[in-house]
């Protein structure tokens, strides 16, 4: 039988309990790289509204998971990705914003945190409407065999969210709420709270994208 000659994607394996060693060694208990990757996406020069994303990841019993690795990928304040495949040349690239970061949930509290800026809206697929401001999330950990992909939307972006082509296909509609981060003010800090539920009541929408 003749077969097409595509290669097959390498199989995923769990990141395991010691994922921190490779990806965020400081949390494992040591420093090794001159320039470690971190949960702070901004510098002084970065353009945009400073926000903190904070939350926890819960297992099927409702207990916070304290060994989760999260990565986020987002557009800049104008809504452009810092990547050559982004065709939105009418929007500026922010040279001081890569748009990517990683964090671990805290071994004691289970909280994760990112310091970033609020992204702008991004064009959707051709023929689709604009996508509401959102942050793409990927999580890996012990007990997670293949990394899980989801999105953070901003609960205060009511109109943009209502028109978002991705949120609109989530059925039943109440599951869209699992992707909404809640805006809070803490002193002068803007904090968006975003919890992830791996299983059970309020299970987060994960994407096969």
């Amino acid at each position, binding site marked *: 039988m003749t077969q097409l000659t*595509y*290669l*097959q*994607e*390498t*199989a*995923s*394996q*769990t*990141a*395991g*309990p*010691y*994922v*921190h*060693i*490779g990806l965020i*060694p400081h949390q*494992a*208990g040591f420093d*090794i790289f001159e320039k470690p990757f971190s949960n702070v996406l901004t510098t002084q020069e970065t353009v945009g509204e400073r926000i903190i994303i904070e939350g926890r990841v819960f297992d*099927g019993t409702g207990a916070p998971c304290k*060994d989760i690795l999260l*990565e986020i*990928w987002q*557009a800049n304040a104008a809504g452009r*990705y*810092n*990547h*050559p*495949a*982004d*065709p939105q040349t009418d929007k500026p690239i922010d040279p001081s914003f*890569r748009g*990517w970061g990683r964090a671990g949930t805290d071994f004691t509290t289970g909280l994760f945190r990112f310091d970033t800026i609020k992204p702008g809206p*991004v064009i959707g*697929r*051709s*023929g*689709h409407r604009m*996508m509401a401001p*959102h942050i*793409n999330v*990927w999580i890996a950990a012990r*007990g*997670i*065999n*293949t*990394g899980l992909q989801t999105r953070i939307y901003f609960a205060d972006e009511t109109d943009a969210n209502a028109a978002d082509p991705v949120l609109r*296909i*989530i059925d039943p509609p109440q599951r869209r709420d699992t992707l909404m981060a809640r805006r809070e003010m803490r002193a002068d800090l803007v904090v968006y709270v975003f919890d992830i539920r*791996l*299983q059970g009541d309020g*299970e*987060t*929408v*994960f*994407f*096969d*994208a």
Partner: protein
Amino acid sequence: MPSQPFEFFQRDRTLQPPALTPGYKTSVLRSPRLAMLSLQNSLSEVTGPVFGHGDIGALDHDLILNYAKTGEPIGERTIVHGRVLDETGRGIPNALVEVWQANAGGRYRHKNDTYLAPIDPNFGGCGRMLTDAEGRYVFRTVKPGAYPFRNQVNSWRPAHIHFALSGHGFAQRLITQMYFEGDPLIRHDSILNTIPDAAARERLVALLDMNAAVPLDSLAYRFDIVLRGRRQTVFENKLYGN
């Protein structure tokens, strides 16, 4: 016209471990039970972080030297090399490859690892590198040891190295583990056995590569990694490569 240039081939989930694998007990409470939402790629999935040589230090890919304090780490000196390819067989240049592992005794440098084998004062156990123009990577380390873990009463992990891969799109992100040819613990491993497809499991076992060994110095193993490929059309703009 495609409605999203650069979109990826749909992931073949039959080659991937399901979320719920009761033989690996930790997955039971951490596996989503609702169906994932199938999502055609948008700009958010086809783009991803771009890394450059400014991110990586000169010794980051040398686990024999990158944490050496009073001497070099104990263990079998080992070179691991291979290519990062996409499903069309093209090498992926500038992919970020991050690795981590236990030391030769099977102990991790991690505040939560309490296994009784000792920490090696000269071994950190992690490294990172970018692939070259043809998608090649290489790093040097000591071969990790096997170690027990709490799953069944007598569960052991075969020697393995963890790999995290970032290609050119966020939807290509992959974490996996590499095993060593001939390790008798491989067939007992409840983590490797989360993958239902025998050929997919086999592809995670690196082969001894005597041609890449350095005589009187290091053995070598070859491990190629395949990330998702992008759809090609006559309308496609060149994103990378020649």
